[in-house]
């Protein structure tokens, strides 16, 4: 044996060799269990896979590098979160209306990260290929990290503002939070291939850019250093997840031609479901950011029409077409944010955040951004409601809206090409009639009615009396069904809901910051310093 000093150092492996050894090199063939007993869910969807080794992570990320870079991301993020908390960063955002958007985020989006963690855990267990299993395992850990960092970050806001302290409870009970909840539960109760096409491709690759890039950039523009930091820290993982999405699609399409129609069906379905879910971001971007980076229709043009167009041009070589209902999303882009805000405003007593009508400045911005739709269809509605508020007879819905059996949004959308007619669809199944908001949702219902007839629709359940806390007596003389349903949902009437003006959040904001709670309307209370006289005092002091 040669002396140690004479031994040549081992050749450093390149990235591809290293990846091969630390993924496929870690796999093994089972000897005492049959493969089909180990991977029990991989066949029933009808997907044909000939060679799992053809799947490769283009980042060639191995577990050792993963921990190294994730550790660095965490250190960067928590340094910022610490600084934010120590310096009362929650008071440095544009105004207290911005905080209402964070309520939607923590209550409606953070739980999806946790659901995603669970979903990818299952994939990491169920896929026979080593490459995708490792990628799914990393993603599962990423998603848990996202949920954790969002909860840590927003907890600072929850110490000062209403409506953020009951998020896991509310996610399972609040009527409009069944929209995100049902989306993810639909995906996670599918087979492993439908789940990964739904989440990694249709949702993450095709759609999440347009939510998180302009939204998080908007958070930065409004001074929220905490949210933009967790947002971009999460997005740095998302870029990897998106790559998993496109690689999975290419892998399925290249493995067998029989997979093409299945993949197309899942793209059509999950593009539509994902679009409906993310339309929530349309109203958050256009109405809840006091300072705006871009409008929803501009984001849709950049991130779906241009970038999604390039993607589907690339996939055409496999015989894949753009999503069936993409034309509807383009037709709706000038309407969807306004229609949603209107429904939330009208139902503001039944939501867990506070609402306002857009200011004159904001309506001027919308007229400019939506020249074909805003002045004609939505400005008159807001001006009418403003007059109603001024007259002391503000408009409110006293009943809850009809929900779509598939996406669970209220049926609030209009017909493509006719924004004055509500879009309503129905299907019969086993002698019962089910209602949908659109052709996209009706396609999905009609393909698998036996799945969607089980949907737990909150409005139906409330009206059937299934959403009251124990001990509530509906026959009592002072029984108020609305108040009792809100209590069941974890929404405190008069605190978490209703009008922004006069709310605890708006009043406290002015008391604690001496700045207006709504930068466009001026001070609601006399806690706001008169900036003119402050300037005089400063000038006098300066001599």
């Amino acid at each position: 044996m040669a002396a140690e000093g004479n031994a040549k150092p081992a050749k450093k492996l390149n990235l591809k060799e290293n990846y091969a050894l630390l993924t496929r090199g870690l796999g093994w063939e089972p000897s005492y269990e049959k493969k089909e007993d180990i991977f029990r869910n991989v066949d029933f969807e009808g997907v044909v896979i000939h060679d799992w080794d053809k799947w490769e992570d283009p980042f060639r990320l191995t577990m050792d590098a993963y921990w190294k870079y994730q550790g660095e991301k965490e250190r960067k993020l928590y340094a910022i979160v610490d600084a934010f908390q120590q310096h009362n960063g929650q008071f440095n955002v544009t105004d207290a209306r911005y905080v209402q958007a964070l309520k939607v985020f923590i209550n409606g989006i953070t739980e999806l990260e946790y659901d995603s963690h669970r979903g990818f855990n299952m994939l990491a267990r169920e896929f026979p290929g080593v490459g995708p299993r490792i990628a799914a395992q990393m993603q599962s850990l990423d998603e848990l990290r996202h949920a954790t960092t969002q909860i840590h970050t927003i907890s600072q806001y929850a110490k000062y503002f209403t409506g953020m302290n009951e998020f896991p409870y509310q996610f399972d009970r609040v009527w409009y939070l069944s929209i995100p909840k049902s989306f993810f539960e639909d995906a996670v109760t599918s087979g492993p291939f439908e789940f990964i096409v739904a989440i990694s491709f249709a949702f993450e690759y095709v759609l999440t850019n347009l939510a998180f890039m302009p939204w998080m950039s908007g958070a930065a523009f409004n001074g929220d250093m905490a949210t933009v930091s967790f947002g971009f820290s999460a997005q740095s993982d998302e870029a990897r997840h998106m790559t998993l999405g496109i690689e999975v699609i290419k892998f399925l399409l290249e493995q067998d031609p029989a997979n093409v129609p299945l993949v197309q069906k899942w793209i059509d379905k999950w593009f539509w479901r994902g679009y409906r879910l993310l339309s929530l971001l349309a109203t958050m971007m256009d109405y809840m950011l006091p300072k705006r980076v871009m409008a929803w229709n501009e984001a849709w043009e950049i991130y779906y029409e241009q970038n999604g167009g390039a993607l589907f041009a690339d996939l055409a070589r496999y015989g894949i077409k753009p999503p069936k209902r993409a034309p509807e999303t383009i037709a709706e882009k000038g309407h969807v944010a306004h229609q949603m805000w209107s429904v939330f405003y009208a139902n503001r007593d039944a939501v867990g955040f506070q609402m306002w009508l857009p200011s004159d400045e904001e309506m001027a911005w919308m007229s400019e951004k939506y020249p074909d739709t805003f002045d004609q269809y939505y400005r008159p509605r807001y001006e009418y409601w403003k007059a109603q508020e001024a007259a002391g007879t503000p408009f409110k819905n006293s009943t809850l809206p009809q929900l779509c059996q598939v996406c669970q949004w209220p049926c609030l959308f209009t017909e493509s090409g006719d924004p004055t007619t509500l879009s309503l669809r129905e299907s019969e199944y086993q002698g019962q009639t089910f209602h949908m908001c659109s052709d996209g949702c009706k396609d999905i219902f009609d393909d698998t009615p036996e799945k969607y007839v089980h949907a737990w629709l909150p409005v139906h359940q409330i009206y059937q009396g299934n959403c009251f806390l124990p001990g509530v007596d509906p026959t009592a003389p002072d029984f108020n069904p609305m108040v009792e349903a809100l209590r069941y949902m974890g929404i405190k009437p008069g605190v978490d809901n209703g009008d922004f003006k006069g709310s605890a959040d708006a009043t406290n904001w002015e008391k604690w910051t001496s700045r207006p709670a709504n930068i466009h309307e001026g001070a609601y209370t006399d806690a706001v310093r008169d900036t003119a006289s402050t300037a005089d005092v400063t000038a006098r002091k300066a001599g």
Partner: protein
Amino acid sequence: MATTSTQPVFIALQANNDTLPIIDAIRQDNPNAIVHDYPAMVKIDCPGRLVIRRETVEEHLGRDFDLREIQINMISIAGNVDESDDEFVLEWKTH
């Protein structure tokens, strides 16, 4: 390998001091790249193909650079990815 596609690929990076040399390297190696500045974020579009070369980043950075470090500051990408020790490539393969 050259692509014939002119469909846009993109990479979006956090706007911070770590990414300035990377953005400079991208500009140098991709003359057709268009850099859009947004609050906290830079989005770089390029027709067909965009390459980040390790050597060019190292020239701008003044130290060794592992291309996987991009992961720390990357926000999003569009295009098929191919990563080796020397290049990180985004591209579309067809028109």
